[in-house]
C-alpha cells in the first residue's frame, strides 16, 4: 500500500477539527511548508500529493535536490477559481485562465474547441497550472474533487474521458481523480475502460464524508480491486486500532493519502500504515 503525503494543512484545510485557519497561518511562508516536507521525506515518504498553488510550487522547487519527491499535482485550486469567478464572472474567469497560457496558445486551443475537440484546451489549462514544477518528477496529474464531482454531477462523462485521455496521451502520465462520491465515479471511470486512472476518495471507520455510505464504498473497493484506489481521510475520528482494522480489511486499496503538520505525527502515521502493509498491528 503506497503512502502519499498530502498538503491540506498547507492550504489551511482541516475538515473536522476547526484548525483550518490556524494551519493557514502556520504555513504562510514557503520555508514553513518546506520544513514539513523535509520531515515527511526523512521519515520515508516519497510521494507528495498536492493542490497546485504558488507557495507549494516554490517549496517543491526549494527542495528539488534535497527531497526529490515523486510529484502528484492536483488542480484546480478551488479557492483561486472561486475568487476568479467572483471577480470576473463565469465567462470572464474561463477567459482569464486560458489567457494566462498566452494568446497564441489560447487562440489555437479555443479554435479546437469550436471544432469539437476539447483535449487541446484541457492540455493548455493543465500546463498553465503545473508550470513551474520540475516536470520530470511528475508521476500523476489529479483532478480535484471540486472539479471531478462537479463534472460527475452534471453528467459530463465525456469531460472525465477527455481529462483521462489528455493526461495519458498528451502529458503521458497517470490521471488521478479525487472524489467524494467514489462508487458513482468508479462506475463512470473503470466500468468505461479508463483503466489507468487512480481514484482518491474518503474512507474512515466513522463514515465521515464517506458517501453514499461506508458499506457502499467498501463494496466498491472490492468490486474494483484490480484498479488503483487510494483512500484519504482515513484518520478522521478514528482510533489507531480502527485505522489499522480498516486498512487490513480493505487490502484491495493500493494507497493511502494523508497529511500532517507535526513531525511526530508524520512519523507515527507512516509507521502505522507501514506496519499495516506488513500485516502487523502496532
Amino acid at each position, binding site marked *: 500500500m503506497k503512502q502519499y503525503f498530502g498538503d491540506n494543512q498547507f*492550504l*489551511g484545510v*482541516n*475538515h*473536522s*477539527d*476547526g484548525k*483550518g*485557519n490556524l494551519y*493557514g*497561518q502556520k504555513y504562510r511562508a514557503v520555508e514553513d511548508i518546506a520544513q514539513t516536507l523535509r520531515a515527511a521525506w526523512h521519515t520515508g515518504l516519497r510521494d507528495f500529493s498536492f493542490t497546485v498553488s504558488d507557495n507549494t510550487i516554490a517549496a517543491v522547487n526549494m527542495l528539488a535536490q534535497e527531497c526529490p519527491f515523486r510529484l502528484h499535482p492536483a488542480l484546480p485550486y478551488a*479557492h483561486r477559481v*472561486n475568487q476568479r*469567478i*467572483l*471577480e*470576473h*464572472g*463565469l*465567462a470572464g474567469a*474561463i477567459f482569464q485562465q486560458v489567457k494566462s497560457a498566452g494568446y497564441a496558445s489560447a487562440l489555437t486551443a479555443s479554435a479546437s474547441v469550436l471544432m469539437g475537440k476539447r483535449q487541446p484546451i484541457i492540455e493548455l489549462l493543465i500546463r498553465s497550472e503545473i508550470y513551474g514544477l520540475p516536470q520530470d518528477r511528475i508521476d500523476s496529474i489529479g483532478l480535484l474533487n*471540486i472539479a471531478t*464531482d*462537479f463534472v*460527475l*454531477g*452534471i*453528467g*459530463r462523462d465525456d469531460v472525465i474521458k477527455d481529462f483521462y485521455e489528455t493526461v495519458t496521451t498528451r502529458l503521458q502520465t497517470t490521471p488521478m481523480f479525487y472524489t*467524494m*462520491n467514489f462508487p*458513482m465515479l468508479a462506475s463512470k471511470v473503470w466500468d468505461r475502460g479508463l483503466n489507468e486512472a487512480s481514484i482518491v476518495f474518503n474512507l*474512515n471507520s*466513522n*463514515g*465521515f*464524508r*464517506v*458517501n*453514499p*455510505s461506508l458499506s457502499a464504498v467498501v463494496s466498491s473497493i472490492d468490486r474494483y480491486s484490480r484498479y488503483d484506489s487510494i483512500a484519504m481521510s482515513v484518520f*478522521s*475520528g478514528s482510533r489507531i486500532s480502527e485505522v489499522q482494522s480498516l486498512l487490513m480489511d480493505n487490502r484491495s486499496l493500493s494507497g493511502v493519502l494523508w497529511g500532517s503538520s507535526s513531525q511526530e505525527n508524520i512519523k507515527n502515521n507512516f509507521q502505522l500504515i507501514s506496519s499495516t502493509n506488513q500485516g502487523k498491528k502496532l
Partner: protein
Amino acid sequence: MNFSKVYLKMEGPSINSELRVVVIGGGRIALSHLPHLMAHSKVILAGLVEPNFWSRIVLRLIFRCKVFKSLHAIDLEHIDAAFILTPPTSHISIAERLVAEGKHVFIEKPLSLSRADSELLARAASDAGVFLGCGYVYRFHPIVGYIKELLVEGGLRERLHKVSLSMKGNVVSADSPKSWRNIGPGSGCLHDYGSHVIDLSIFWFGRPAGVELLSKEELFVNGVLDRVCFNLKYHELCVEIEIDWACRDMRKADMSFTFHTNSGVLKGGLQHLESSDPMVSSVSIKDLDTRVDYYLRGEDFQRQLDGFVSGCLGLDDENVLMSDGVDCDTIISQLEAKIT
C-alpha cells in the same frame, strides 16, 4: 431532526415522481446548485435563464441544457418549480410571477430586501398552495442540527444565559470589483453573511423580541456595511452577533458559536463544538451522520435540496407554517432602520 422544517409547507403539494425545475440566474451560486440538481434522481432540469449573452454561451457549453435569455421565453406549463438565484433586488418580482402560476419556488437568501415584500410573497405562496424555500443552507449542517437537538430535546435552551454567534470571511477588499454585493440596494455584509447568522438564531431560538445595534463599520464604500455587531434579544437570553466579511486573515468563511450555560461554555463552529459543561459532550462533525447521495458543496447543500424536492413532491407531509425567511428579513429591516 426533520430537515423539511425549513420550508413553508402549504396546502396541496403536487404528487409527481419527478420535479421539473428551471433555474433563474447563471452566476456563481448557480454553479453550486446546478450539479446538485442535475445529479438528483427526482429532478429534471428543464432549463436555465441567464440574461448575459456570453454567460449563456458558456453555460450551454458546460451544462448542455436549454439556456434562455428571460423567463418569458419559457413555457411554464411544463415546469413544477423554480430556483431563483439572482441578486436579491430581483427576487420578489420573479417569485411573484412564478407563485401566481402555481410553481414551487426556492430563493437564494435573503428572501427579499423588505419585510413587507417577503410577507406578501409568503402569503401569496400560501394562497397558491406552493412551497417557498429560502437558501439558509446552514440549517442543514450536521453541527447546526446537533445544536438544535441539544436545545430542543437536551434541555440546553433553559440553561442558556448568553450566546455569541459570528461569521467572518474575506469577501471584499479595497480593490474588489464592484457588483451588487458591494454597491447599491441589497449590498453589504448584513444581507450576505448577516442573513445566515440571523437565520441560525431564528432556527435555534425562534423569533427575537427585540434588536439592538452595537456597532457598524463601512470600510470601502459609504453606506455599505462591512462589519456589524448587534444583539437579538429573547426572553431571558441575549444572542450577540458579529459579522465581518472584510477579514483579510481568513481564507474562507468561518462561523463560530459560543453558548454560555449555567454550568459551563460550549464553544466552536461548523466543524467541532468544545464543551466545558458537564451536561453536554464535546462533538466533532466527524462524529455525526454526514452521508448524502451526492456531495459537492457539502452535505448541507444536498440535504437542503432533498428537503425542498421532497416537500414539492408531497413526499414529506409535515406542515410548518412559520415563515422564518420573513422573520429574517424583518430583523434586517429593523437593523437597517437603526443604522440609517
